[in-house]
């Protein structure tokens, strides 16, 4: 169990990652984002960088939400681009090719991002 309290990043009903939602929609759904194309990535990575390293993966799990609870997700179901497709991109946001941010695992990726793996590391309540 990490010492960092990640509650602030996994408790609010509204996602703290609005630019990441734009970036995900741009990359997964071909939806144009405000400003030049690189801006969404830049701002999204900034949002993720502001989250403590220990909490980034948890925040991303919370951002995706459970498949059965679209009402609790930061992602929107879109015509031709379902939430599940967008979730694939959320899972790799911290990797070297995108935001390149270290996580609780001291590497730039998140483990256990499948929903069935969440219970150990993520409290849904």
């Amino acid at each position: 169990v990490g010492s960092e309290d990640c509650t602030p990043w996994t408790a609010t009903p509204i996602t703290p990652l609005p630019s990441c939602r734009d970036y995900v929609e741009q990359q997964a759904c071909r939806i144009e984002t405000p400003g030049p194309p690189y801006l969404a990535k830049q701002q999204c990575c900034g949002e993720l960088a502001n989250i403590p390293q220990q909490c980034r993966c948890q925040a991303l799990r919370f951002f995706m939400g459970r498949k059965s609870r679209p009402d609790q997700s930061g992602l929107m179901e879109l015509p031709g681009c379902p939430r599940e497709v967008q979730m694939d991109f959320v899972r790799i946001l911290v990797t070297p090719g995108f935001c390149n941010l270290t996580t609780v695992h001291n590497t730039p990726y998140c483990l256990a991002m499948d929903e069935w793996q969440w219970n150990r590391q993520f409290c849904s309540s």
Partner: protein
Amino acid sequence: AAAAATDCSPGVAFPTNLLGHCRDYVLQQTCAVFTPGSKLPEWMTSAELNYPGQPYLAKLYCCQELAEIPQQCRCEALRYFMALPVPSQPVDPSTGNVGQSGLMDLPGCPREMQRDFVRLLVAPGQCNLATIHNVRYCPAVEQPLWI
């Protein structure tokens, strides 16, 4: 094998050494092998030799590779691509061994990370290619239907 598998069999509907450019694109996007200063060993960054100064060509060529696969078989091909056996050890690309298709485990960028991006390759924001159900994504792509 199910009836659908005969329609999209590896080696029939698509070549078994498929998607070499897509592998480059996945490595580029997920693992940043083209990024100067990345911590990856030099042999891994050699993929840049294929696209000197034009990294966007990786995406273009990858999308062409996918477009050449029949629409009904694109998701099957991606499943095959994700599950292909790969060299367990880094191999000098000059020997051609890593030229085989399939994903590679890289230090700091394991295959699991790359698979998430492979699933996205046909999505509207990437190659924007229709698949088996006339949608632009692969439903339940993790399930190895072709086995």
